[in-house]
Structure formats: C-alpha cells, structure tokens
C-alpha cells in the first residue's frame, strides 16, 4: 500500500515535471517547426509536383516523376559520388589531423592558451570568405601556392588547381580540412582533458611506451566523443555547398548534391525536380547517419543512463 501510494506520488511529480519540460520546450519546438519543419515539408511537397519557379500556382501533382528524372540523370550520380567521396575523405583527414593537434595542445607548454585560440581562426572565418581567399591562392597565374611550389622546385609549371576536375576535388578537400580540423581538434581536446591521469601513470609503471599508451588507453577512452564529432562533420560534409560553389563554380563534374539541387531549382527553374533532389539528399543523409550509428555503436544519449 505504501509503495503504491509512494509510486502514485512520484508519478504525479514526474507528470508535473514532464509537463513543465514540454512547456519550456514549446517555444523551441515552434521555432524549429517554423524555420526548419515548414520549409522541409514544402520541399517534400514540391517534389511530388511539376512546379516551375516562374509560376508556382500552376504546379500539378505528378507522383514520383520528378524523383525518377533525378535518378535517371547520370549527373546526379556523379554528384552523389563526388559528395560521398568528399565527405569520407575530408572527415577522415580531419579526424586524424584533429587528433594530432589535440594531443599537442593537451601537453603543457608556454603560450598554450594563445595557441588554442589561434587554432580556431580558420573555423571562425565564414566558408564563403575562406573559399574565395583560397581561390586566389590557388590561381594558376598569380596564386601564391603555385609560386611557392615552383620556387621550391616541386613543380615545373603552374597547376590549374581549381580548373581541372581531378585537381579541383583535392583543392576543395584541402580547404575543407583547413577549415574544419580546428573544430575536430577542440572537441577531442575536451575529451582528452577528462581522461584520468593515474591510468597513464600505471601504464608507465608497467613499461608501456607513449605509442602503446595512445592505442591501448587514449584511443579507446575517447572513441565515443571522436565518433560523435566525426558524425557532426559527416552531416556537415554531406550537405556541402559553398566551398564547391565558390572554388569550382558549377561544372557537372565537380558538383555536390546540394549544388545539383540548386541548379535545378533556380538555374533551370524546375522547382519540382530540384525539390526531389533535395529530398533525396535528406534521405541519403538520414540513411548514412543511421548506418553510422549502428555500425559505430555510437550513443547520442550519453549521460541519461
């Protein structure tokens, strides 16, 4: 009896708490629904029509026709391949480099605070600005990168970094790595600082070298935060648009999926087809995220239990 009334009392309190939580969450939920949910719903809605940008009122329901025309377009599959390759390569590089930088910043040295702040500068610059800056540095005739490589004797003639599709891909990866590595490094640094010192001391006493300590202790302990940080970057990289747009400017061979959707929506005025491409992009991101979470056994609700 006592337990029952006790349980009943707790559930009243729990219900009150849950209600309060919802009340506090409500403004946020309404905000998200307005700025994210509504546009997304409209995009999905348009993807089932033949809407043209010039006259939205004339749109008719056409079922899956727009999706089929995207899936039949070889340019779309080029864009998918470009995006996925870009996301995997750049996130891998960012994780490795970010880990290296985090390990360095984790050590104590004079001016560490200043270095930590300075490392964040690339992340703070808007992508469009940094991409434009890199575009000038990559310029084939008066770019500084060619000038340096020529001076060092690594090149015999200037390369057109952003012009040739094979080079342009790597130029874009380079800019993205330059920009996002600090973000990665900062998240990993936070994780490193939570690691207990005594484990390392014990390892040292047992005669483990720094390399062994890293692979046996550090890596397993920061795996969770590392996977979550990599997931953030992966989501970002899959919906990439601005770096490609500024650096390579729209050729079908160096175009991410978001660029493909933009081109159909606005340049070709085919809002229906463009929306279908955008919807497919969202589905693909959701799918890859699910696969990643399952395969990596990543838990996003750490701290709950």
């Amino acid at each position, binding site marked *: 009896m006592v337990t029952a009334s006790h349980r009943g009392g707790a559930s009243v309190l729990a219900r009150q708490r849950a209600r309060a939580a919802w009340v506090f969450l409500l403004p946020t939920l309404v905000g998200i629904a307005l700025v994210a949910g509504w546009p997304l719903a409209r995009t999905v809605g348009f993807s089932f029509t033949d809407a043209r*940008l010039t006259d*939205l009122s004339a749109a008719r329901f056409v079922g899956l026709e727009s999706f089929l025309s995207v899936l039949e377009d070889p340019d779309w599959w080029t864009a998918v391949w470009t995006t996925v390759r870009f996301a995997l390569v750049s996130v891998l590089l960012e994780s490795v480099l970010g880990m290296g930088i985090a390990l360095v910043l984790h050590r104590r040295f004079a001016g560490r605070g200043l270095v930590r702040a300075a490392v964040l500068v690339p992340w703070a610059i808007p992508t469009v600005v940094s991409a434009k800056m890199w575009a000038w540095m990559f*310029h*084939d*005739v008066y770019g500084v990168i060619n000038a340096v490589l020529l001076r060092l004797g690594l090149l015999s003639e200037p390369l057109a970094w952003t012009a*040739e599709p094979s080079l342009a891909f790597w130029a874009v990866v380079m800019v993205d790595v330059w920009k996002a590595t600090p973000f990665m490094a900062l998240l990993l640094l936070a994780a490193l600082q939570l690691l207990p010192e005594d484990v390392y001391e014990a390892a040292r006493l047992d005669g483990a070298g720094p390399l062994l300590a890293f692979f046996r202790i550090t890596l397993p302990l920061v795996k969770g935060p590392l996977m979550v940080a990599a997931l953030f970057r992966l989501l970002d990289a899959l919906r990439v648009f601005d770096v490609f747009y500024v650096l390579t400017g729209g050729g079908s061979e160096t175009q991410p999926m978001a660029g493909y959707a933009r081109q159909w929506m606005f340049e070709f*005025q085919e809002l229906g087809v463009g929306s279908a491409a955008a919807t497919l992009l969202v589905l693909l991101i959701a799918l890859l995220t699910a696969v990643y979470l399952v395969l990596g056994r990543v838990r996003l609700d750490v701290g709950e239990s």
Partner: protein
Amino acid sequence: MSMVRMGRMLALMLFVPVAAGAARLNIACGSVGQEQELCRQGAEAWARQTGNEVSLVSVPTDAGQQLTMFQQLLAAGGSDIDVFRIDVVWPGIVGPFFIDLRPYFPEAERAAFFPALMRNNTVDGRLVAIPWFVDAGLLYYRKDLLEKYQQRPPDTWQALARTAKGVLEGEHRAGQVRLTGFVFQGKAYEGLTCNALEWVDSFGGGTFVDAQGQVTLDNPRAVEAVSFIASLMGNVVPPGVLSYEEEGARGVFQSGNAVFMRNWPYAWALANSAESPVRGKVGVMALPRGGPEGRSVGTLGGWQLGVSRFSTQPELAVQLVKFLTSAEEQKRRALVASFNPTRVALYRDPDILRANPFMGSLAETFANAVARPTVTGAKYNQVSADIRNAVHATLSGRGSAQENLRKAQQKLVRLSRGGRW
C-alpha cells in the same frame, strides 16, 4: 578609422543616395569591369536632373548567378528592385515579370534601335526591355609581340595556334615563362557556351539547335571545332582557363601574360586605361574563322533594361530606363568604357569611332553575329548547361569531343521532346 565611419563608407559604396528627393528607385546593373561605376554615374545624373534618389543593388558577376537571384526575387513578387539589367537570352525567361514598354516608346523611337534586338526583346507582342548595350565576342592580341616575331594577326584558329606557338617559343627562351598563348572564358558557365558557339559556328558546325528547334549539336564540323580547341590545352591555352570568367581572362591578358584573348568589347577601354601594363600594345579584331572555308563569328550578347511588374513606381522607373538608353548616355558610355550603343545612328558618330576604332566594323559584326539558340525558350539554361558541360569535359581531357557531344546531343533531344521545346 572608426568602425562607424568604415561602416558608413561601406554603406555608401553599396547604396548611393544621390539627392534627398521625393522618390527612390533601385536599379540592378552589372558589376563586370567598369560597369558598376558607369551605371552609378548615369543613374546619378538622372537623379540630379529629376530630384529623385537612385540606389544601386550589387549583383554577382556570373550572369547565371544573377538570373538565379532575380528569379527568386521576382517569383516571390518582391518590389526591392525597380529596374533590372537583363541578358539578351533572358527575355523569354523573365518577360512575364516585366511591364510592356511599348506604350512608353512610340514607333519612331523604337525604330532607332537595332531591329534584331527589339525583336529579341519582344515576347508575345510585349516589349519587355530596351536594349542598353550590345556585345559580340572579339579577339584581342598583343600588337607588340606579333610585330616582334613578324607575325600578322591570325584570320583562322589554326593560324592563331601557329602564331601563338611561335611567340611563346621565343618569349619562353627569353625568360618570359609566365606568358601563355590564348585565354578565353572556359569555366563551366554561360560564357563557355558563348565561346563554344563561336568555335562551332566558325567551323560551319551550326548553332547547337537550329531555327526549327532541331538539335544539331553532334556533327563532324562541331566535333572538329571542339577537338581543335581541346588540342591547344596545355600548350597554347593554359589549363587555368577552365576556371576563368570574363574578368579572369582579362586579368591574365591585361597583366601582360597572354598573347591572345577572346573577350567582349568592354575589355578594350580597360586594356588601354592609364594603369594598364599593356596600354597601347593591344590590337582588336573579329574572331578567327574555322579554316579557309569557315566564317568569322561572334556570339551576340548584350544587356537590356526592363521594369519590374512589382515596382511601386513604374512610371518613374520607365523614365530612368529612357534616360539610360538615350543617345547621349549611350555615347558617354561608348567614349568612357567602350560599351557598344544599341542605337544604329551612333555607329556613324565620329567621336565614338575615334575612341573605339573597332566599332565601325562592329556594326557589321552585329549584323553577322550569331544568336544563342533561344528557340529553346524557358529551357535555354538547361540546353546551355548540357553544352558547356560537354565542352568543359572535353577541354579538361575527360573523353573525346565525339563522345561528349554525342552524349549532350542525346540529352538535348530528350529535353526537346522532338524539337517542340
């Protein structure tokens, strides 16, 4: 300098309030070369005369991006811009959003402009824009270098390649390692479609889509033309052109790093401006023919001014358009920045011909200029994208001209629904 002052200066650069007047108009004109400045001066002059205010809206330099921006604004019924500067291939796309200018320009006044342009700007019997300046592709060359190697300006593409190779060999040996042969607009955007049209038509390969709407892209002459230019990549043409727009090409040529350049007429005044390193060393001529049987072709370009249907002051906006397209204003623009007038009579003006020696012959070039296939109507942008992607792939060494043009041909045929568009 304080942040506030800097901010104020920035604001001034973007929006130029002219005089405190009754009404305020917003105009979107171009930003390539000296256009922004010229437009500002013209708009200011009108504002002073009429006691109104005009603001300039900044637009992207890439025409395709500009159209995208305009489309979004107009599709949403936005009244932020009153007067739009639109490309020669856009009347079919943005026409429905613009007011009919026929009532404001009586018959006699309309007759003063190039008839072909007026026809181009008439959509379903409505005159949606007034021609502001007209363009065609031209070949710029370094007079001094050609003289040094006793070469004549080339009249075929093959001769251009031979001449460039000869000059490069000599100059590279003399230590000018940065010099390249020929630059043009090679980025995968509208400009590449214009260049490709010139190559293909000059080899006798047609205009991608014929007047009846049939796709003609994949033919032996077109393949020959694109293959020929692709064969110049890496020796005469620097690989960097694959990322150049108008200003990218001009930057290389005007800094003295190229023997030949294909560009629009606006580059003439800039190449000869006081601070230009190649001032006085530049010659200009019609583009080369595609071999002895070919013909010299320049793609017809040019910009028009139209008034938005959503403008809150359409009458006033029309006045601004009238002023900017007037004979006096067009003459000023021709003298200061070599913009080609759209009024036929100005091509007999001695002042204009003295400042721009090439303009006399250009009147003829405009008569022969080849128009982009606007028979494709609202699908033009898709057509252009497929063509330039095929050409860009060929120039960057991905597949032969034959394969790439055949693939583009198939896409266009499907898109055209049997030539009905």
